[in-house]
């Protein structure tokens, strides 16, 4: 049985962040219908957790639940070969990302205007890098909120953002 207090906390915390949750779930799952299922599932988990949870940063708190729900959901429903944040394959891919010092800003300007190309590049990133970038640029979270949402140290968050942006620059580069 859910208490009235938990429901009040839920109404204050969860519905206002449904767009953020949906955006994150879409980028983690890559599919609009899956994203809806994930967010509903996450909302139910949030309601149950609010019986006892002490929430300081509501958005980061709810997005962490969305993220964990998405990872569980994908482990269950997707092929095992598909890497998701935290996989060994994924981490190896991150290590291989170059810092893109040699890519000039001018070389990526045209591709950066091409929405389809930007989305393809973002989708092709290792999941842990994509997740950090989405939380930062689309959800607008601060570093320590991203650290809370992904349950990783801030140093790792910084490193993933730097590598994610470098990898995107590489992919958007137009070589002449």
């Amino acid at each position: 049985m859910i208490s009235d207090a938990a429901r009040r906390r839920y109404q204050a915390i969860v519905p206002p962040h449904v767009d953020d949750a949906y955006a994150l779930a879409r980028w983690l799952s890559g599919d609009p219908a899956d994203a809806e299922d994930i967010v509903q599932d996450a909302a139910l988990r949030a309601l149950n957790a609010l019986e006892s949870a002490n929430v300081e940063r509501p958005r980061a708190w709810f997005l962490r639940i969305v993220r964990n729900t998405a990872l569980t959901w994908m482990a269950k429903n997707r092929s095992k070969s598909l890497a998701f944040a935290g996989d060994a394959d994924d981490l190896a891919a991150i290590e291989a990302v170059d810092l893109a010092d040699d890519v000039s800003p001018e070389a990526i300007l045209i591709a950066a205007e091409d929405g389809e190309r930007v989305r393809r590049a973002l989708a092709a990133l290792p999941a842990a890098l994509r997740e950090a970038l989405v939380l930062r640029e689309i959800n607008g979270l601060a570093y320590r909120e991203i650290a809370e949402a992904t349950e990783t140290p801030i140093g790792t968050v910084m490193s993933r953002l730097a590598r994610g942006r470098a990898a995107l620059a590489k992919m958007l580069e137009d070589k002449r």
Partner: protein
Amino acid sequence: MSDSNPRRDRHLRLNAALDDELDAAHRIDLERELERDPQLRASLRRLSVVREAVRRHGAPEAAPATLRNAVAAIGRPKVNRWRLPLSLAACVAAGIVIGAAAQALLSASRAADPVAAAVVADFARAELSDQPFQVASSDRHTVKPWLVAHAPLGVEVADLADKGYPLAGGRIAVVGATPVPTLVYQRREHWIALTELPLPLGDGALETRQGSLDGFHLVRWADRERAYVAVSDIDADELAAFAAAFRAAAAAGGGEAR
């Protein structure tokens, strides 16, 4: 992270500057470095281009209304108490009823008559619940203020106890996105739900019309200010008699208009 790598550390600082996460002292240091180093300035511009690209093209559209409604419904106590499946709660909130093909209702299909669909769904849901009203009282002076406080309509509550329809309580139904006051009268062991609609939702036709949907009977009518729809599982003639009694009482001022 502890192994020292000046090139990587510089990148991290550059990213942190872009994200407005550098403290003042580091920001001043970095600004000096940027003045001296064209390569670093190019790196910062590259990062800005990437950031803008992701912000402009990466944001998906807003969450669909069905998801928004479902998420809001999860936190609503009455929905949980009634143990509705999530999908049904979402559909009811959206003013849509799921189910088999629509029966004719007032010669209109379900899709063409979302009002009837919504009030029937509300009635069916209330039947399933252990508490078919949100305010339980046979006293119209208790029911009316509660409804007025919860829905933006002038509520007319007629006292029909001597006609065999004692008032049992009231609740708020939702038609589309509009909360509408609903009176619950009792007829033997059955309920009759009478929902008051703002005229844009009712069609404004003054004559009484009967219909049915999903095994429930409906009667609709309107006066100059409001439209009404009554729903029940009592038989059609009995429901029509109830509607006539309510209209007569309201016209005679037996209720309390406003």
